[in-house]
């Protein structure tokens, strides 16, 4: 059973710095609450975070807390509490985890990093996936004292965004700001928003640059280190993200310039589709024994959205519109295009498609992606049945059997085409 839960092996010095960044973020969240700074709970991947930091409000991401719970082994207890409340085990693991967490002891012994501070504000999304919307309905019930903003965002494929979608998203940003100003008594300073958008865009540029070094053969950075995206989730709009990513960029660049790979003898370059197994990031290292490295993944693209810094509010509205569709079935055509592009650019030999019981929006459409990879690029792929939160829906033995056979096949193919893969 314990084998199902394994941390990944990290090679970057700077990635080790991440533990400090994570701990400091949660300390900051709890300190904010203690000092009377308004704390707002919100979904990730939208343009609200920059507004929060610009207004000196504390953003908290319950969805992001779930990987922390998975890493610290809190998930089974949280799931159990959610089961006892009558929720189905077929619901998304994020929903089951956070529900159990907020209805259990949120702080104190056994709760890592001080836990999450109770919200003063809740930004409840109309838009994004259904589980996230339902998570926030649950949070509204659990924290009836919090002031709730009922957000609304058009659910539209990225390639279909029209001016009226953007106009409405912009109106929503303006309504949000009015809500925050009314609820907290603070005013949004346009200069501070501009500054937050500037650093947010810098972080995106750094993110893109870091990802670009992964094109090097051998790759200096694998998905085992993808935890670095923590700053893209929680720290966009702050210098903290920029500083950390600069450090990562410098190290990755240096490794790339010196030809230092994740492993000594990189034979196969792999793509990972869908959310990682948060309770077992070690699976990313599993491929290494056969010379495989996961050099690209779907999630990376979500953080590559550059912002028009001259029009901060419009930029944030567009970011809010695009982020979720880019990685979900709202924009299947675009997602397929992005996966194919990544596989071309990163010289991918094979793709691992995580059929994720906890995430229908990303899983739906995977079969068409699989087909396109094969037909358009000749890139084979394998489907792994698992769940990003619930290890009960993951069999390590099945994973290993499937991956071993897949890797064998890839090695044979490569050997046949180049004569020296093995």
């Amino acid at each position, binding site marked *: 059973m314990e084998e199902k839960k394994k941390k990944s092996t990290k090679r970057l010095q700077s990635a080790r710095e991440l533990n400090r960044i994570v701990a400091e973020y949660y300390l900051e969240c709890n300190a904010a609450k203690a000092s009377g700074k308004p704390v707002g709970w919100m979904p990730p991947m939208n343009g609200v975070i920059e507004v929060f930091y610009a207004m000196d409000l504390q953003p908290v991401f319950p969805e992001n807390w779930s990987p922390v719970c998975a890493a610290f082994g809190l998930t089974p207890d949280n799931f159990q509490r959610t089961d006892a*409340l*009558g*929720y*189905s085990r*077929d*619901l*998304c693991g994020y*929903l089951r985890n956070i529900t159990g967490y907020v209805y259990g002891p949120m702080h104190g012994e056994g709760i890592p990093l001080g836990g999450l501070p109770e919200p003063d504000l809740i930004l409840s999304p*109309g*838009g994004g*996936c*259904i*589980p996230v919307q*339902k998570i926030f*309905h*649950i949070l*509204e*019930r659990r924290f009836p004292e919090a002031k709730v903003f*009922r957000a*609304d965002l*058009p*659910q*539209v*494929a990225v390639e279909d965004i*029209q001016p*009226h*979608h953007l*106009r*409405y998203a912009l*109106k*929503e940003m303006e*309504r949000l700001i009015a809500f925050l100003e009314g609820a907290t008594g603070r005013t949004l300073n346009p200069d501070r928003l501009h500054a937050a958008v500037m650093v947010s865009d810098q972080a995106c540029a750094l993110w893109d640059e870091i990802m670009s070094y992964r094109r090097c053969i051998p790759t200096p950075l694998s998905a085992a280190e993808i935890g670095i995206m923590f700053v893209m989730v929680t720290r966009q709009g702050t210098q903290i993200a920029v500083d950390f990513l600069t450090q990562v960029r410098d190290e990755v660049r240096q490794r790339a310039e010196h030809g230092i790979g994740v492993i000594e003898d990189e034979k196969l370059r792999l793509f990972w589709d869908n959310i990682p197994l948060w309770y077992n990031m070690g699976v990313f290292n599993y491929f290494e024994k056969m010379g495989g490295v996961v050099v690209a993944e779907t999630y990376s693209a979500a953080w590559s959205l550059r912002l028009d810094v001259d029009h901060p509010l419009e930029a944030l509205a567009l970011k809010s519109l695009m982020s979720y569709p880019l990685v*979900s*079935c*709202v*924009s*299947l*055509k675009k997602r397929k295009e992005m996966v194919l592009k990544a596989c071309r650019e990163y010289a991918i030999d094979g793709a691992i498609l995580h*059929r994720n*019981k906890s995430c*229908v*929006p990303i*899983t*739906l*459409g*995977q*079969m*068409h992606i699989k087909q396109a990879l094969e037909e358009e690029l000749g890139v084979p792929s394998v489907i792994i049945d698992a769940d990003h939160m619930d290890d009960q829906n993951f069999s390590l033995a099945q994973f290993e059997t499937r991956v071993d056979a897949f890797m064998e096949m890839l090695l044979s193919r490569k050997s046949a085409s180049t004569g020296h893969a093995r």
Partner: protein
Amino acid sequence: MPAAVVEPFAEILRDVPGYLRSLTGRSRPIIGYFCTHTPIELIHAAGFLPVRIFGGTGEVDLAYTLAPTFVCPPMLRSLEAALGGAYAFLTGIVQGYTCDVACGMVNIWQEAFPGIMCHTLPLPYNDCVEGRDFLRAALTELIAKLERLGGHLTSEGLARSLDVYAAIRHSLLDLYRMRYADLLPLAADDFYDIIHAAFIVAPEEYLTMLHELKGSLEEVSPPSTEGVPVLVAGSIIEDSSVFRILESVGARVVADDLCTGFRPFHTPEGEGPEPIERLMDRYLRRLPCPSRCRAEERLPMILELIRFSKAQGVVFLPQKFCTPHLADEPVLRRALAQEGIRSLVVELEATGIHAGQLTTRLQSFVEMLKES
């Protein structure tokens, strides 16, 4: 056997794809939709026949080549039917945004059937001035797409379509009221066959069928008032044998909160100076699907239906893996319990209804209601 007065409806439901295929050449081009948040009046007014896509019952096989096992059975079955050629006559699909699966499936259909036009209509979650402005723009975009398919929309035409669908909703709500008052002489499965046909048959024809039905109801024996009155809640129920089983174990289905039942007919028409405003008003004020609201927004209507219909218990029949319903049920059940109303949840599986298992669970629940 359905009651004779229901036979015209039941006959259509016995082979829906066959019925729709038979319309080829003598009907408007057909546009499919999955969820009832799709503005069918507009599609109809543009010169198309809006038809709700159902998958029927049976095994799922081909659909698993394009979709995972852990999505709701109706969506899998619909895809299965389409891959088997049952929906080859479709000109397009228009889908008012509801849940992740319906949205994803529209895109999967688009990939699988590139010849048809697929459009997902984003709908505002909030009813406010800005939301209505946005909806108007989104509808304008849809109209342009329908016109590219050869459709043509006029304000007068939209007004006529709004009227005919409003007449259907009023008429069906009349039947519901008769049911609440024990005046409708129909078994539940017959009643839901009538409702189900509303999603398939051209509205003008359906309205005529409803008028004929109402005219014949007096000839039918007075309704049975036996059985424990229950309300059934959930999403799509295609297989009316569920209702038959419920009534065979001593329950009487007197009301529902289903998206193949009461929910899409609530708020029969909207208000506004222009037809497009009437349309928007109706879709923004209708009783929403759980994918578009909080459980607390559904609860008052469920309680009101219970009060009207004198239901003594609630049977939740969600489709397996249906997140919007599964996430709201614990909240609704707790709230019902606080009102002293007992409830039962039975998930409907991908493989269809297991009559034996369902009978046992429903029987125990009905017995419990009888004793309380």
